[in-house]
């Protein structure tokens, strides 16, 4: 029975009628009646997403709206889930992650008035989708500086998930940061081609350490746990991603490249509730205090544990962070290999 049955097909259509233009005029609506949905990758322990989860939870507590989070198990369910979110009459649909970009654009152009769409982490041209992106290169630059200042050798390692332009801003920012203090630096990059293969990341880290890298930048999501374990064994310094990854058990994780997505979610929801959300694309960086480095732009949950991260170094990097915020240091990511 795939032929159109009028009785059935009226259901979603009528739902569209009951909320005419609701999304564009949320101001009149009680926040408690609002439905907000976050559609993202599988959350797991991915801090980029767990922070968003926290942010959304905070907003729910604050305003009492109904919120839901949908994790997409595979590439094909993104569009289904976004469409279902429209069907299920959500007012604000937040899509986080590259795989959601095309689907949300498609759905937004089909149902421009049924919901407000926000796309986090990817740029988009779609007029109906607000895009939020980050200048991760600024954080990476600060991490690079720290690395350059604490590392005794001229060799710097990094373990990333994927090779290619998509992750170049992390690598470029890191290299620029290192080079700003250590012009003769040499770099070693390895790629796990997986966000979860901690074993592989660890082996790469051990190899890089053996090759003389005194600092290894970990940027392969869950697999970073492998790099951290290697740091503990081999005594090189390393940094985490997104949220405070320092731990009293591992003093070699000296800092973290901050990407505070909780703040972003809270900002979006607040603006939405207050009717102030515009469709202008926004980019967050050090200036907005979303991107940064732990102990430089943000305090850690643990005090600085490593003696190598001296006050002097912190002060120096803080100075650079100020310059970035003020626009004195401009970091525009070029195409890789150019």
């Amino acid at each position, binding site marked *: 029975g795939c032929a159109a049955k009028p009785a059935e097909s009226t259901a979603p259509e009528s739902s569209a009628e009951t909320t005419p233009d609701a999304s564009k005029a949320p101001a009149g609506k009680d926040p408690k009646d609002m439905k907000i949905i976050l559609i993202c990758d599988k959350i797991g322990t991915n801090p980029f997403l767990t922070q968003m989860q926290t942010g959304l939870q905070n907003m729910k507590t604050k305003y009492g709206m109904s919120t839901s989070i949908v994790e997409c198990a595979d590439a094909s369910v993104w569009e289904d889930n976004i469409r279902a979110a429209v069907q299920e009459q959500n007012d604000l649909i937040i899509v986080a992650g590259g795989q959601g970009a095309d689907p949300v654009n498609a759905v937004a152009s089909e149902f421009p008035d049924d919901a407000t769409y926000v796309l986090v982490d990817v740029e988009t041209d779609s007029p109906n989708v607000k895009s939020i992106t980050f200048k991760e290169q600024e954080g990476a630059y600060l991490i690079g500086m720290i690395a350059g200042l604490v590392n005794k050798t001229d060799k710097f390692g990094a373990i990333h998930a994927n090779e290619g332009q998509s992750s170049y801003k992390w690598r470029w920012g890191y290299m620029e940061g290192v080079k700003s203090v250590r012009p003769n630096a040499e770099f070693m990059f390895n790629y796990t081609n997986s966000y979860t*293969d901690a*074993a592989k990341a660890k082996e790469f880290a051990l190899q890089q350490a053996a090759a003389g890298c005194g600092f290894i930048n970990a940027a392969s999501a869950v697999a970073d746990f492998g790099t951290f374990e290697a740091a503990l064994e081999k005594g090189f310094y390393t940094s985490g991603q997104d949220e405070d990854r320092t731990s009293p058990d591992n003093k070699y994780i000296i800092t973290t490249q901050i990407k505070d997505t909780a703040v972003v979610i809270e900002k979006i929801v607040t603006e939405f509730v207050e009717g102030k959300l515009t469709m202008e694309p926004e980019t967050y960086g050090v200036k907005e205090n979303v991107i940064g480095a732990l102990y430089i732009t943000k305090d850690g949950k643990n005090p600085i544990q490593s003696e190598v991260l001296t006050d002097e170094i912190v002060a120096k990097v803080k100075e650079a962070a100020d310059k970035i915020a003020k626009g004195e240091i401009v970091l525009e990511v070029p195409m890789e290999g150019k």
Partner: protein
Amino acid sequence: MNIDFEYIAVVINSTIRMMTPVLYAALGSAICSKVWVFNIALEGQMLTGAFMAIVINYYTGSVLLSVLGAALSGMLVALIVGILQVKFRASDMVVGTSINLLMLGATTFLLYVIFGVKGVFTDPRLKGLPKIELPIIKDIPFIGTMFARLTFLDYFAIIMAVLLYIYLFKTVSGFRLQAVGINKQAVNSLGINADRTQICAVVFSGLLCGLGGVLLTLGQVTLYTENVTAGRGFFAMAAANLGGSHPIGVVISSFFFGFAEAIGNALQGTAIKSQLTMALPYIVTIIALVFSSNKFRKRARVLK
């Protein structure tokens, strides 16, 4: 260009560690093909072992119990595989694929049920396998690094291969086991229960896969990530196939693949992109199979 021997030794050391889990599974695959059972559920058996090791480790804090538990759970899954394939004569492909899917689902599901997390589980309470420092060898410059920080399970993989070789070719029981693979009907006609031998072999492959699984979660690293086996069970099948299902052949083919992967990794950062270097071990497998074709022709098995 000056060659950094220490670095090379570390790479070899990494390769050994990355390969031993595959070697366990490949030995499991080999013993199954010795009794003419095609076991595709290695992946699922391994995943179960890896998961159970973490669970038991978390609750008991005992490495020994973790290893035992992992081996046992691998055997349990293998028992299901064996019974379905041997007793019920179910299609090996269906059983294997379903068990793999089942264990992937079940471990992910249980990870959430038991620990309330998704994706990854790590905890300071987890105790990894103790690393073994070999008394004299550890002080030899190159060799020492090559064999640094291996766990007893890493060494045991090689020992297991040798034991398996002795078992198959020197003991009476191994002799009878091989006979099942050659002519099951003849074994039955002598009143020896060939079904039981086959199931036992599959269960033993479960034990091996369980040990391989332990290495993935308590050996190289001490944490559990979802689908931590990431296709190693399938890769083991290819390795066993190339090694002619001979324990020593399997050791050689497993390390051959290990080095293919190591070379792939070494090529990262050169003009060849990592997406391509990742394909290298698989391409090498095919090429190796082609080159050993004559030998395999006879063994080539057309599945029903």
